[in-house]
């Protein structure tokens, strides 16, 4: 696993599994096998590792995000997805490895949680103009894009979870980023709104050419919207173009045919977690859209 093949999936049981075909679809990332960060990428990291209290949180993680590309991180709870994002954003320091950020990097960030203290009085409009040179018309336009035009004069502390997420996304877009980082952006957004948000992000990516790093639990949407998927379980155990990854025997076994139990199997496979009867434990991440077992394969789009 050291040279990060592009679409090998979790090769613990099949270290030499049939992954040759996967390389065909790889558009970028040809420097990934090198140990040096990719200078062309917006953000490039090599061999990132992090420990907390003797526990391995991340180990040997390589990742590149280039302009115009949507990269999605998937993986079970506790896989280190959010931690990896925090390292890439510079919110936390890694214990080992290298991160290179392009000099002109301009990040738009949508954190997992956006809870505003009620003690702070601030309207949405003010929040969206803090540190930015924007007029009310710009703000109205971007709020319309994310479907939250009606909240412009509201207090931040009065927003619902979904509205808050849209407002932070609006701020991220207003910054004219070349890298958009979204950590589970659809929390508190209903299914229709979710599909719309992904469509919007995909469209803006095409229009503006920014790179996107997405953390998600939702395999349906991930498969439809991503250019590249990285599945993480403390190390990168799977990486590649969604279609190819989705056809990969390992992937199908983990996420496809048995999607209903995908994460449970996944954890079982890697962590050997069992309940008292010896069956794989149901994973806590049941906020994943649990689909019926047949026909739930990824890559068919977010219906």
């Amino acid at each position, binding site marked *: 696993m050291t040279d990060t093949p592009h679409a090998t999936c979790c090769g613990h049981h099949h270290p030499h599994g049939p992954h040759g075909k996967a390389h065909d679809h790889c558009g970028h990332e040809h420097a990934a096998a090198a140990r040096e960060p990719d200078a062309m990428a917006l953000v490039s990291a090599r061999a990132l590792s992090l420990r907390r209290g003797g526990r391995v949180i991340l180990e040997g993680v390589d990742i590149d995000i280039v302009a115009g590309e949507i990269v999605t991180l998937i993986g079970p709870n506790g896989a280190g997805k959010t931690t990896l994002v925090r390292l890439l954003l*510079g919110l936390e320091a890694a214990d080992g490895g290298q991160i290179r950020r392009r000099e002109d990097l301009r*990040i738009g*960030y949508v954190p997992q949680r956006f809870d505003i*203290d*009620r*003690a702070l*009085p*601030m309207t949405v409009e003010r929040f969206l103009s*803090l*540190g930015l040179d924007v007029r009310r018309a710009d703000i109205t336009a971007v709020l319309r894009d994310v479907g939250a035009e009606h909240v412009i004069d509201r207090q931040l502390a009065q927003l619902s979870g979904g509205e808050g997420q849209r407002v932070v996304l609006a701020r991220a877009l207003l910054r004219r980023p070349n890298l958009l980082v979204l950590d589970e952006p659809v929390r508190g957004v209903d299914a229709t709104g979710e599909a719309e948000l992904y469509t919007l992000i995909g469209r803006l990516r095409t229009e503006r050419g920014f790179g996107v790093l997405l953390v998600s639990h939702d395999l349906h949407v991930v498969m439809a919207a991503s250019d590249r998927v990285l599945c993480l379980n403390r190390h990168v155990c799977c990486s590649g173009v969604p279609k190819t990854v989705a056809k990969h025997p390992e992937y199908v076994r983990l996420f496809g045919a048995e999607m209903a139990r995908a994460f449970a199997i996944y954890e079982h496979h890697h962590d050997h977690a069992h309940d008292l009867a010896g069956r794989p434990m149901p994973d806590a991440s049941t906020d994943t859209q649990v689909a019926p077992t047949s026909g739930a394969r990824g890559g068919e789009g977010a219906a």
Partner: protein
Amino acid sequence: MLEPFLLRALVAALGLALVAAPLGALVVWQRMAYFGETMAQASLLGVALSLAVGGDVTVSVLVVAMLAALLILLLSRQRVLPLDSVLGLLHHGSLAAGVIATAALAGPSVDLLGYLFGDIFAVSQTDLAWIWGGGVLVLGVLYFIWQPLLRLAVHEELAIAEGVPGGRIKAAFMLLLAITIAIAIKILGILLVIAFLIVPAAAARPFARTPEQMVAITALVAVAGVVAGLALSARSDAPGGPAIVLVLAAMALTSLVRARIAGRGD
């Protein structure tokens, strides 16, 4: 006309009210009341330090308050105890140490009450210079780092991910807080300094729709509290600092109750 000592008290407290307004609002927004409280109470060790080495109280209080802030920051990184317990431990511990050290150094005749609750009517010309000079400095620096401070107050990680130098801005803010505590300590004492910061801000919150409005209303509340508190003190012979804080607390309670009744409890 006002007596000179009363006039000096008024000028000192009004200066402090203006400095305390933006800082108090920031302390409330960032939930740092207990943090500030700990810095202030550790400052009694600064008083002891100045008794020991004979330097100026304001300077040694400033130094000790900064050291306390640093210690709190270091201890906030450990994960054995939650931060409020650590702060509780530090603030009671340093208060006890401060009382003992002060009494040991100054002898039994020491005016502990003066250090704990301040003595606003003993304000000298030098104190006034400290308050207004330090106050202008604090407000000037705040003006320049206001926007990054606001962004950190809204969402710290978002601000840092967007490129706000979080560590430096927060360090600057703590320095400003330490300066304010140092110049206020003679007037309000280590036990009432933080109340003077956060109580007016709490009273202002229900009436504000923007951060700057909240600061302006906080300043108005604090000025009103100072005038009313000193009047109460002059009339009833109550100690000045406690009289001001009592009036402010009454205003804050009234404001919160009124906001609750009016359904504006946002």
